[in-house]
Protein backbone atom coordinates (compact mmCIF):
# COMPACT_ATOMS: atom_id res chain seq x y z
CA UNK A 1 0.00 0.00 0.00
CA UNK A 2 1.27 3.46 -0.87
CA UNK A 3 2.27 4.56 2.61
CA UNK A 4 2.14 8.29 1.94
CA UNK A 5 -1.28 8.15 0.31
CA UNK A 6 -2.67 6.07 3.19
CA UNK A 7 -1.20 8.53 5.69
CA UNK A 8 -2.77 11.48 3.90
CA UNK A 9 -6.15 9.74 3.76
CA UNK A 10 -5.96 8.66 7.40
CA UNK A 11 -5.22 12.22 8.51
CA UNK A 12 -7.68 13.80 6.12
CA UNK A 13 -10.68 11.59 6.98
CA UNK A 14 -10.98 12.42 10.70
CA UNK A 15 -10.12 16.01 9.76
CA UNK A 16 -13.19 16.15 7.53
CA UNK A 17 -15.36 14.67 10.28
CA UNK A 18 -13.95 17.11 12.84
CA UNK A 19 -14.68 20.10 10.63
CA UNK A 20 -18.21 18.85 9.94
CA UNK A 21 -18.79 18.24 13.64
CA UNK A 22 -17.54 21.71 14.50
CA UNK A 23 -20.03 23.37 12.13
CA UNK A 24 -22.89 21.06 13.12
CA UNK A 25 -22.31 21.72 16.82
CA UNK A 26 -22.19 25.46 16.22
CA UNK A 27 -25.47 25.33 14.36
CA UNK A 28 -27.27 23.56 17.24
CA UNK A 29 -28.20 25.42 20.37
CA UNK A 30 -28.96 22.58 22.77
CA UNK A 31 -30.62 22.42 26.18
CA UNK A 32 -27.13 21.89 27.63
CA UNK A 33 -25.95 25.12 26.02
CA UNK A 34 -28.88 26.99 27.56
CA UNK A 35 -28.21 25.44 30.94
CA UNK A 36 -24.50 26.25 30.64
CA UNK A 37 -25.27 29.89 30.07
CA UNK A 38 -27.59 30.03 33.05
CA UNK A 39 -25.24 28.18 35.40
CA UNK A 40 -22.46 30.71 34.89
CA UNK A 41 -24.13 32.85 37.53
CA UNK A 42 -24.18 29.95 39.96
CA UNK A 43 -20.60 28.93 39.18
CA UNK A 44 -19.45 32.38 40.13
CA UNK A 45 -20.75 32.07 43.69
CA UNK A 46 -20.25 28.37 44.46
CA UNK A 47 -16.63 27.43 45.32
CA UNK A 48 -14.98 24.77 43.14
CA UNK A 49 -14.41 22.36 46.02
CA UNK A 50 -17.98 22.41 47.36
CA UNK A 51 -20.77 19.84 47.41
CA UNK A 52 -24.29 20.67 46.28
CA UNK A 53 -27.46 18.66 46.44
CA UNK A 54 -29.63 18.66 43.35
CA UNK A 55 -33.38 18.54 43.32
CA UNK A 56 -35.49 18.69 40.20
CA UNK A 57 -39.15 17.85 40.72
CA UNK A 58 -40.45 15.94 38.81
CA UNK A 59 -37.41 13.62 38.72
CA UNK A 60 -35.32 14.54 35.69
CA UNK A 61 -32.12 12.52 35.41
CA UNK A 62 -31.10 13.97 32.06
CA UNK A 63 -31.03 17.50 33.41
CA UNK A 64 -29.25 16.29 36.54
CA UNK A 65 -26.52 14.77 34.36
CA UNK A 66 -26.21 18.00 32.39
CA UNK A 67 -26.08 20.19 35.50
CA UNK A 68 -23.62 17.85 37.19
CA UNK A 69 -21.39 17.91 34.13
CA UNK A 70 -21.48 21.68 33.86
CA UNK A 71 -20.86 22.29 37.56
CA UNK A 72 -17.88 19.88 37.80
CA UNK A 73 -15.47 19.76 39.58
CA UNK A 74 -18.01 20.66 42.23
CA UNK A 75 -19.78 17.58 43.59
CA UNK A 76 -23.48 17.54 42.74
CA UNK A 77 -25.50 14.80 44.43
CA UNK A 78 -29.09 13.91 43.59
CA UNK A 79 -31.48 14.18 46.52
CA UNK A 80 -35.15 14.33 47.40
CA UNK A 81 -34.30 15.50 50.90
CA UNK A 82 -35.38 19.11 51.20
CA UNK A 83 -33.45 19.61 54.43
CA UNK A 84 -29.95 19.09 52.99
CA UNK A 85 -27.68 22.07 53.63
CA UNK A 86 -27.14 23.36 50.08
CA UNK A 87 -29.75 22.45 47.48
CA UNK A 88 -29.78 23.47 43.86
CA UNK A 89 -33.39 23.37 42.65
CA UNK A 90 -34.50 23.24 39.05
CA UNK A 91 -38.21 23.99 39.08
CA UNK A 92 -40.67 24.48 36.23
CA UNK A 93 -40.30 28.08 34.95
CA UNK A 94 -43.67 29.22 36.28
CA UNK A 95 -43.45 27.42 39.64
CA UNK A 96 -43.79 29.40 42.81
CA UNK A 97 -41.72 27.71 45.50
CA UNK A 98 -42.08 28.31 49.18
CA UNK A 99 -38.32 28.01 49.56
CA UNK A 100 -36.63 30.33 51.97
CA UNK A 101 -32.93 31.19 52.32
CA UNK A 102 -32.48 31.68 48.60
CA UNK A 103 -28.81 32.43 47.86
CA UNK A 104 -29.22 32.73 44.11
CA UNK A 105 -32.07 32.43 41.63
CA UNK A 106 -32.80 32.93 37.98
CA UNK A 107 -35.40 31.96 35.37
CA UNK A 108 -35.43 31.13 31.69
CA UNK A 109 -37.76 29.28 29.32
CA UNK A 110 -36.57 25.88 30.66
CA UNK A 111 -36.44 26.25 34.43
CA UNK A 112 -36.64 28.39 37.50
CA UNK A 113 -33.23 27.96 39.16
CA UNK A 114 -32.78 28.35 42.90
CA UNK A 115 -29.87 27.79 45.24
CA UNK A 116 -31.06 27.28 48.79
CA UNK A 117 -28.80 27.29 51.82
CA UNK A 118 -30.58 25.73 54.78
CA UNK A 119 -29.27 26.90 58.13
CA UNK A 120 -28.34 24.05 60.49
Amino acid sequence: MNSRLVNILIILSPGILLAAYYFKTRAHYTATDQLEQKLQGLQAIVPTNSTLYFNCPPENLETYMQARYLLAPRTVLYTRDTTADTIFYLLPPTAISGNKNIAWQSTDSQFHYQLIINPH
Partner: protein
Amino acid sequence: MQKNTVQIIWLALGAGYMSCIYFLSLVAGLPLFITVFIVLVAVFFLYRFLSKNIIEETVESPSRKTTLVFTGGLLLLVLSSLLLLPYQGDWDALGIWNFHARYLQQPAYWRQLFHNGKFSHTDYPALLPSCIAFLWRITGRETELVPFGIAALTTLSIPVLLFLETYRKHIIIAALIMISFAVNTAYIHQGLSQYADTLLAFFFLGAFVSMQHYRASIQPTYIFICAGMLGSAMWTKNEGIMLSAIFVLFYIKTFLSRKNIAYTLAGILPFVLILLLYKSYAPANDLVQGQHTSTISKLVDVTRYKLIAEYFLLKLNANFYVLKIALLAYLIYCAIKKQLPAKPLLLLTVCFAGYVMVYIVTPNDLEWHLSTSADRLVQQLLPATMYVLALEASAALTKRRQQ
Protein backbone atom coordinates in the same frame (compact mmCIF):
# COMPACT_ATOMS: atom_id res chain seq x y z
CA MET B 1 4.19 -5.33 9.83
CA GLN B 2 3.83 -2.68 7.16
CA LYS B 3 4.57 0.93 8.02
CA ASN B 4 0.95 2.15 8.07
CA THR B 5 -0.13 -0.60 10.44
CA VAL B 6 2.77 0.20 12.76
CA GLN B 7 1.77 3.86 12.73
CA ILE B 8 -1.82 3.03 13.69
CA ILE B 9 -0.61 0.67 16.41
CA TRP B 10 1.79 3.37 17.63
CA LEU B 11 -1.01 5.92 17.79
CA ALA B 12 -3.15 3.56 19.87
CA LEU B 13 -0.36 2.52 22.23
CA GLY B 14 0.78 6.14 22.39
CA ALA B 15 -2.69 7.14 23.60
CA GLY B 16 -2.49 4.40 26.23
CA TYR B 17 0.87 5.62 27.51
CA MET B 18 -0.21 9.24 27.31
CA SER B 19 -3.18 8.58 29.58
CA CYS B 20 -1.06 6.57 32.04
CA ILE B 21 1.58 9.30 32.26
CA TYR B 22 -1.04 11.99 32.61
CA PHE B 23 -2.87 10.17 35.41
CA LEU B 24 0.41 9.50 37.19
CA SER B 25 1.37 13.17 36.87
CA LEU B 26 -1.95 14.13 38.49
CA VAL B 27 -1.21 11.85 41.43
CA ALA B 28 2.34 13.16 41.69
CA GLY B 29 1.23 16.76 41.19
CA LEU B 30 3.60 17.42 38.29
CA PRO B 31 3.32 20.65 36.29
CA LEU B 32 1.83 20.31 32.81
CA PHE B 33 5.00 21.14 30.90
CA ILE B 34 6.87 18.27 32.57
CA THR B 35 4.01 15.88 31.77
CA VAL B 36 4.01 17.03 28.14
CA PHE B 37 7.78 16.51 27.98
CA ILE B 38 7.55 12.97 29.41
CA VAL B 39 4.69 12.08 27.04
CA LEU B 40 6.64 13.35 24.03
CA VAL B 41 9.76 11.43 25.03
CA ALA B 42 7.72 8.26 25.65
CA VAL B 43 5.87 8.33 22.32
CA PHE B 44 9.07 9.22 20.45
CA PHE B 45 10.95 6.25 21.87
CA LEU B 46 7.94 4.02 21.40
CA TYR B 47 7.87 4.87 17.70
CA ARG B 48 11.61 4.35 17.37
CA PHE B 49 11.37 0.99 19.11
CA LEU B 50 8.47 -0.17 16.94
CA SER B 51 9.90 1.09 13.67
CA LYS B 52 13.32 -0.42 14.39
CA ASN B 53 11.95 -3.82 15.26
CA ILE B 54 8.83 -4.53 13.25
CA ILE B 55 8.49 -2.32 10.18
CA GLU B 56 8.91 -4.55 7.13
CA GLU B 57 10.70 -2.52 4.49
CA THR B 58 10.27 -5.27 1.92
CA VAL B 59 6.49 -5.17 1.63
CA GLU B 60 5.72 -5.24 -2.07
CA SER B 61 3.88 -2.28 -3.55
CA PRO B 62 0.17 -2.92 -3.97
CA SER B 63 -1.55 -2.70 -7.27
CA ARG B 64 -3.38 0.43 -8.31
CA LYS B 65 -6.60 -1.59 -7.89
CA THR B 66 -5.85 -2.17 -4.19
CA THR B 67 -5.20 1.52 -3.58
CA LEU B 68 -8.41 2.37 -5.41
CA VAL B 69 -10.45 -0.11 -3.34
CA PHE B 70 -8.97 1.32 -0.14
CA THR B 71 -9.66 4.91 -1.14
CA GLY B 72 -13.21 4.05 -2.20
CA GLY B 73 -13.87 2.16 1.03
CA LEU B 74 -12.56 4.98 3.17
CA LEU B 75 -14.57 7.51 1.21
CA LEU B 76 -17.72 5.47 1.76
CA LEU B 77 -16.92 5.26 5.47
CA VAL B 78 -16.42 9.01 5.72
CA LEU B 79 -19.63 9.68 3.79
CA SER B 80 -21.62 7.34 6.07
CA SER B 81 -20.07 9.03 9.10
CA LEU B 82 -21.01 12.46 7.76
CA LEU B 83 -24.60 11.30 7.24
CA LEU B 84 -24.78 9.94 10.79
CA LEU B 85 -22.84 12.78 12.36
CA PRO B 86 -24.23 13.70 15.80
CA TYR B 87 -24.21 17.27 17.12
CA GLN B 88 -23.26 16.22 20.63
CA GLY B 89 -22.04 13.15 22.51
CA ASP B 90 -24.55 10.55 23.64
CA TRP B 91 -25.85 10.05 27.17
CA ASP B 92 -22.80 8.24 28.61
CA ALA B 93 -20.39 10.74 27.05
CA LEU B 94 -21.95 13.51 29.11
CA GLY B 95 -22.73 11.33 32.11
CA ILE B 96 -19.49 9.34 32.33
CA TRP B 97 -16.53 9.83 29.98
CA ASN B 98 -16.43 13.58 29.40
CA PHE B 99 -17.75 14.12 32.92
CA HIS B 100 -14.78 12.23 34.39
CA ALA B 101 -12.46 14.19 32.08
CA ARG B 102 -13.75 17.46 33.53
CA TYR B 103 -12.40 16.42 36.92
CA LEU B 104 -9.18 14.94 35.60
CA GLN B 105 -8.27 18.20 33.91
CA GLN B 106 -8.24 19.93 37.31
CA PRO B 107 -4.93 19.16 39.06
CA ALA B 108 -6.22 20.57 42.34
CA TYR B 109 -9.68 18.99 42.32
CA TRP B 110 -9.47 15.72 40.35
CA ARG B 111 -9.93 13.61 43.51
CA GLN B 112 -13.41 15.14 43.91
CA LEU B 113 -14.47 12.87 41.05
CA PHE B 114 -14.72 10.05 43.58
CA HIS B 115 -17.09 12.05 45.83
CA ASN B 116 -19.79 11.58 43.20
CA GLY B 117 -22.33 8.95 44.06
CA LYS B 118 -25.06 7.37 41.99
CA PHE B 119 -24.99 7.39 38.16
CA SER B 120 -21.37 8.59 38.00
CA HIS B 121 -19.58 5.21 37.59
CA THR B 122 -16.32 6.52 38.99
CA ASP B 123 -14.99 2.95 39.15
CA TYR B 124 -14.71 2.91 35.35
CA PRO B 125 -11.06 2.95 34.21
CA ALA B 126 -9.78 6.27 32.95
CA LEU B 127 -7.86 5.85 29.69
CA LEU B 128 -10.36 7.86 27.68
CA PRO B 129 -11.07 10.59 30.28
CA SER B 130 -7.32 10.99 30.95
CA CYS B 131 -6.61 11.43 27.23
CA ILE B 132 -9.42 13.96 26.90
CA ALA B 133 -8.34 15.84 30.04
CA PHE B 134 -4.70 15.95 28.92
CA LEU B 135 -5.61 17.27 25.46
CA TRP B 136 -8.02 19.81 26.97
CA ARG B 137 -5.25 21.12 29.16
CA ILE B 138 -2.80 21.31 26.28
CA THR B 139 -5.27 23.10 24.01
CA GLY B 140 -6.36 25.33 26.90
CA ARG B 141 -9.99 24.87 25.89
CA GLU B 142 -12.59 22.43 27.03
CA THR B 143 -13.94 21.69 23.60
CA GLU B 144 -16.07 18.74 22.59
CA LEU B 145 -13.91 18.49 19.48
CA VAL B 146 -11.35 16.57 21.56
CA PRO B 147 -13.59 13.63 22.59
CA PHE B 148 -15.21 13.68 19.16
CA GLY B 149 -11.78 13.67 17.48
CA ILE B 150 -10.74 10.61 19.49
CA ALA B 151 -14.04 8.90 18.65
CA ALA B 152 -13.78 9.70 14.93
CA LEU B 153 -10.17 8.55 14.73
CA THR B 154 -11.02 5.27 16.47
CA THR B 155 -14.12 4.64 14.35
CA LEU B 156 -12.15 5.14 11.13
CA SER B 157 -9.00 3.35 12.29
CA ILE B 158 -10.72 0.01 12.91
CA PRO B 159 -11.81 -0.65 9.28
CA VAL B 160 -8.54 0.84 8.01
CA LEU B 161 -6.49 -1.49 10.22
CA LEU B 162 -8.63 -4.45 9.17
CA PHE B 163 -8.12 -3.59 5.51
CA LEU B 164 -4.37 -3.10 5.87
CA GLU B 165 -4.08 -6.41 7.67
CA THR B 166 -6.13 -8.44 5.23
CA TYR B 167 -5.67 -7.03 1.72
CA ARG B 168 -2.43 -8.94 1.14
CA LYS B 169 -4.19 -12.17 2.04
CA HIS B 170 -7.34 -11.61 -0.01
CA ILE B 171 -8.32 -8.29 -1.56
CA ILE B 172 -12.00 -9.17 -1.97
CA ILE B 173 -12.35 -10.10 1.68
CA ALA B 174 -10.52 -6.91 2.69
CA ALA B 175 -12.86 -4.86 0.52
CA LEU B 176 -15.95 -6.63 1.89
CA ILE B 177 -14.87 -5.92 5.45
CA MET B 178 -14.29 -2.25 4.69
CA ILE B 179 -17.71 -1.96 3.05
CA SER B 180 -19.45 -3.90 5.82
CA PHE B 181 -18.15 -1.35 8.36
CA ALA B 182 -18.94 1.61 6.12
CA VAL B 183 -22.61 0.59 5.77
CA ASN B 184 -23.05 -0.48 9.38
CA THR B 185 -24.97 2.44 10.84
CA ALA B 186 -24.96 0.91 14.33
CA TYR B 187 -21.17 0.68 14.31
CA ILE B 188 -20.72 4.26 13.12
CA HIS B 189 -23.35 5.62 15.50
CA GLN B 190 -21.72 3.85 18.45
CA GLY B 191 -18.28 4.91 17.28
CA LEU B 192 -19.13 8.59 17.04
CA SER B 193 -21.12 8.66 20.27
CA GLN B 194 -17.95 9.44 22.28
CA TYR B 195 -18.30 6.24 24.34
CA ALA B 196 -15.29 4.08 25.24
CA ASP B 197 -16.60 0.84 23.70
CA THR B 198 -15.16 1.39 20.22
CA LEU B 199 -11.82 2.32 21.72
CA LEU B 200 -11.89 -0.91 23.70
CA ALA B 201 -12.79 -2.79 20.51
CA PHE B 202 -9.82 -1.20 18.79
CA PHE B 203 -7.35 -2.23 21.52
CA PHE B 204 -8.75 -5.75 21.54
CA LEU B 205 -8.41 -5.96 17.76
CA GLY B 206 -4.83 -4.69 18.10
CA ALA B 207 -4.07 -7.57 20.47
CA PHE B 208 -5.33 -10.10 17.91
CA VAL B 209 -3.40 -8.45 15.08
CA SER B 210 -0.12 -8.42 17.00
CA MET B 211 -0.58 -12.00 18.19
CA GLN B 212 -1.16 -13.05 14.59
CA HIS B 213 2.08 -11.32 13.57
CA TYR B 214 3.91 -12.94 16.44
CA ARG B 215 2.78 -16.37 15.31
CA ALA B 216 4.02 -15.65 11.81
CA SER B 217 7.39 -14.16 12.76
CA ILE B 218 8.17 -15.25 16.38
CA GLN B 219 9.39 -11.69 16.95
CA PRO B 220 8.92 -10.85 20.67
CA THR B 221 8.27 -7.16 19.96
CA TYR B 222 4.79 -8.29 18.89
CA ILE B 223 4.28 -9.75 22.35
CA PHE B 224 5.14 -6.34 23.79
CA ILE B 225 2.55 -4.71 21.50
CA CYS B 226 -0.04 -7.38 22.24
CA ALA B 227 0.47 -7.00 26.00
CA GLY B 228 0.35 -3.20 25.64
CA MET B 229 -2.92 -3.44 23.72
CA LEU B 230 -4.41 -5.73 26.38
CA GLY B 231 -3.18 -3.35 29.10
CA SER B 232 -4.78 -0.43 27.28
CA ALA B 233 -8.03 -2.41 27.00
CA MET B 234 -7.96 -2.99 30.78
CA TRP B 235 -7.35 0.72 31.38
CA THR B 236 -10.24 1.63 29.05
CA LYS B 237 -13.20 -0.27 30.50
CA ASN B 238 -13.93 -2.84 33.19
CA GLU B 239 -15.01 -5.25 30.44
CA GLY B 240 -11.47 -4.87 29.09
CA ILE B 241 -10.13 -6.47 32.27
CA MET B 242 -12.21 -9.57 31.59
CA LEU B 243 -11.37 -9.66 27.88
CA SER B 244 -7.64 -9.25 28.55
CA ALA B 245 -7.64 -11.91 31.26
CA ILE B 246 -9.29 -14.39 28.86
CA PHE B 247 -6.84 -13.49 26.09
CA VAL B 248 -3.83 -13.95 28.38
CA LEU B 249 -5.18 -17.29 29.60
CA PHE B 250 -5.60 -18.53 26.02
CA TYR B 251 -2.00 -17.65 25.16
CA ILE B 252 -0.46 -18.11 28.60
CA LYS B 253 2.35 -20.33 27.31
CA THR B 254 3.34 -17.77 24.68
CA PHE B 255 3.20 -14.84 27.08
CA LEU B 256 5.12 -16.56 29.83
CA SER B 257 7.75 -18.34 27.75
CA ARG B 258 11.31 -17.53 28.78
CA LYS B 259 11.87 -15.58 25.56
CA ASN B 260 8.72 -13.48 25.91
CA ILE B 261 8.07 -12.88 29.58
CA ALA B 262 10.10 -9.66 29.76
CA TYR B 263 8.19 -8.29 26.75
CA THR B 264 4.87 -9.35 28.26
CA LEU B 265 5.61 -7.60 31.53
CA ALA B 266 7.02 -4.50 29.83
CA GLY B 267 3.84 -4.25 27.76
CA ILE B 268 1.16 -4.93 30.33
CA LEU B 269 2.62 -3.99 33.70
CA PRO B 270 2.48 -0.16 33.38
CA PHE B 271 -1.25 -0.39 32.67
CA VAL B 272 -1.94 -2.88 35.45
CA LEU B 273 -0.12 -0.69 37.98
CA ILE B 274 -1.92 2.47 36.86
CA LEU B 275 -5.23 0.64 36.96
CA LEU B 276 -4.51 -0.57 40.52
CA LEU B 277 -3.56 2.96 41.53
CA TYR B 278 -6.77 4.34 40.02
CA LYS B 279 -8.87 1.64 41.67
CA SER B 280 -7.34 2.53 45.04
CA TYR B 281 -9.19 5.87 44.76
CA ALA B 282 -12.34 4.56 43.10
CA PRO B 283 -15.34 2.90 44.80
CA ALA B 284 -16.11 -0.78 44.22
CA ASN B 285 -17.84 -1.77 41.01
CA ASP B 286 -21.63 -1.77 41.38
CA LEU B 287 -22.01 -5.15 39.64
CA VAL B 288 -19.49 -6.77 41.99
CA GLN B 289 -20.80 -5.01 45.09
CA GLY B 290 -24.37 -5.95 44.27
CA GLN B 291 -23.75 -9.70 44.53
CA HIS B 292 -25.34 -11.67 47.36
CA THR B 293 -27.11 -14.96 47.96
CA SER B 294 -29.62 -14.39 45.12
CA THR B 295 -26.72 -14.83 42.67
CA ILE B 296 -27.06 -18.62 42.95
CA SER B 297 -30.76 -18.54 42.10
CA LYS B 298 -30.03 -16.26 39.15
CA LEU B 299 -27.48 -18.75 37.83
CA VAL B 300 -30.11 -21.51 37.61
CA ASP B 301 -32.91 -19.31 36.30
CA VAL B 302 -33.47 -20.47 32.70
CA THR B 303 -35.66 -17.48 31.80
CA ARG B 304 -32.67 -15.16 32.27
CA TYR B 305 -30.63 -17.14 29.75
CA LYS B 306 -33.56 -17.11 27.36
CA LEU B 307 -34.00 -13.36 27.65
CA ILE B 308 -30.29 -12.75 27.06
CA ALA B 309 -30.29 -15.01 23.99
CA GLU B 310 -33.36 -13.22 22.60
CA TYR B 311 -31.75 -9.83 23.13
CA PHE B 312 -28.48 -10.69 21.47
CA LEU B 313 -30.27 -12.30 18.53
CA LEU B 314 -32.36 -9.17 18.19
CA LYS B 315 -29.24 -6.98 18.20
CA LEU B 316 -27.44 -9.23 15.72
CA ASN B 317 -30.42 -9.23 13.36
CA ALA B 318 -31.02 -5.51 13.62
CA ASN B 319 -27.51 -4.05 13.68
CA PHE B 320 -24.86 -6.67 13.03
CA TYR B 321 -26.35 -9.04 10.44
CA VAL B 322 -23.10 -9.19 8.42
CA LEU B 323 -21.38 -10.54 11.52
CA LYS B 324 -24.20 -13.06 12.01
CA ILE B 325 -24.03 -14.29 8.42
CA ALA B 326 -20.22 -14.50 8.49
CA LEU B 327 -20.28 -16.45 11.76
CA LEU B 328 -22.95 -18.85 10.51
CA ALA B 329 -21.08 -19.42 7.24
CA TYR B 330 -17.88 -20.15 9.15
CA LEU B 331 -19.58 -22.59 11.52
CA ILE B 332 -21.18 -24.41 8.57
CA TYR B 333 -17.76 -24.56 6.90
CA CYS B 334 -16.23 -26.02 10.07
CA ALA B 335 -19.02 -28.62 10.28
CA ILE B 336 -18.52 -29.66 6.65
CA LYS B 337 -14.75 -29.87 7.10
CA LYS B 338 -15.25 -31.63 10.45
CA GLN B 339 -12.88 -29.27 12.22
CA LEU B 340 -13.05 -27.16 15.35
CA PRO B 341 -13.31 -23.38 14.99
CA ALA B 342 -9.96 -21.58 15.14
CA LYS B 343 -8.47 -20.88 18.58
CA PRO B 344 -9.01 -17.09 18.38
CA LEU B 345 -12.67 -17.66 17.64
CA LEU B 346 -12.96 -19.95 20.65
CA LEU B 347 -11.34 -17.15 22.65
CA LEU B 348 -13.97 -14.71 21.42
CA THR B 349 -16.71 -17.22 22.26
CA VAL B 350 -15.41 -17.43 25.84
CA CYS B 351 -15.39 -13.61 25.98
CA PHE B 352 -19.00 -13.60 24.86
CA ALA B 353 -19.85 -16.27 27.46
CA GLY B 354 -18.22 -13.96 30.04
CA TYR B 355 -20.60 -11.17 29.04
CA VAL B 356 -23.54 -13.56 29.31
CA MET B 357 -22.47 -14.53 32.83
CA VAL B 358 -22.26 -10.86 33.85
CA TYR B 359 -25.83 -10.40 32.63
CA ILE B 360 -26.97 -13.54 34.43
CA VAL B 361 -25.74 -12.31 37.82
CA THR B 362 -26.35 -8.60 37.31
CA PRO B 363 -27.94 -6.93 40.35
CA ASN B 364 -29.69 -4.50 37.96
CA ASP B 365 -32.97 -5.17 36.21
CA LEU B 366 -31.89 -7.61 33.49
CA GLU B 367 -34.06 -6.16 30.72
CA TRP B 368 -32.86 -2.61 31.44
CA HIS B 369 -29.25 -3.78 31.63
CA LEU B 370 -29.55 -5.59 28.29
CA SER B 371 -31.33 -2.72 26.57
CA THR B 372 -28.66 -0.24 27.63
CA SER B 373 -25.57 -2.29 26.88
CA ALA B 374 -26.04 -5.38 24.66
CA ASP B 375 -25.27 -3.61 21.38
CA ARG B 376 -22.19 -1.97 22.89
CA LEU B 377 -20.85 -5.36 23.94
CA VAL B 378 -21.31 -6.70 20.40
CA GLN B 379 -19.47 -3.60 19.19
CA GLN B 380 -16.56 -4.43 21.53
CA LEU B 381 -16.12 -7.87 19.96
CA LEU B 382 -17.09 -7.01 16.37
CA PRO B 383 -13.70 -5.90 14.92
CA ALA B 384 -11.73 -8.79 16.44
CA THR B 385 -14.36 -11.29 15.28
CA MET B 386 -14.35 -9.87 11.75
CA TYR B 387 -10.56 -10.03 11.73
CA VAL B 388 -10.46 -13.66 12.81
CA LEU B 389 -13.16 -14.62 10.30
CA ALA B 390 -11.32 -12.75 7.53
CA LEU B 391 -8.11 -14.64 8.28
CA GLU B 392 -9.94 -17.95 8.29
CA ALA B 393 -11.79 -17.19 5.06
CA SER B 394 -8.59 -16.00 3.35
CA ALA B 395 -6.75 -19.14 4.42
CA ALA B 396 -9.57 -21.38 3.18
CA LEU B 397 -9.80 -19.58 -0.18
CA THR B 398 -6.03 -19.61 -0.69
CA LYS B 399 -5.90 -23.32 0.13
CA ARG B 400 -8.68 -24.02 -2.36
CA ARG B 401 -6.92 -22.02 -5.05
CA GLN B 402 -3.70 -23.96 -4.50
CA GLN B 403 -5.52 -27.29 -4.83
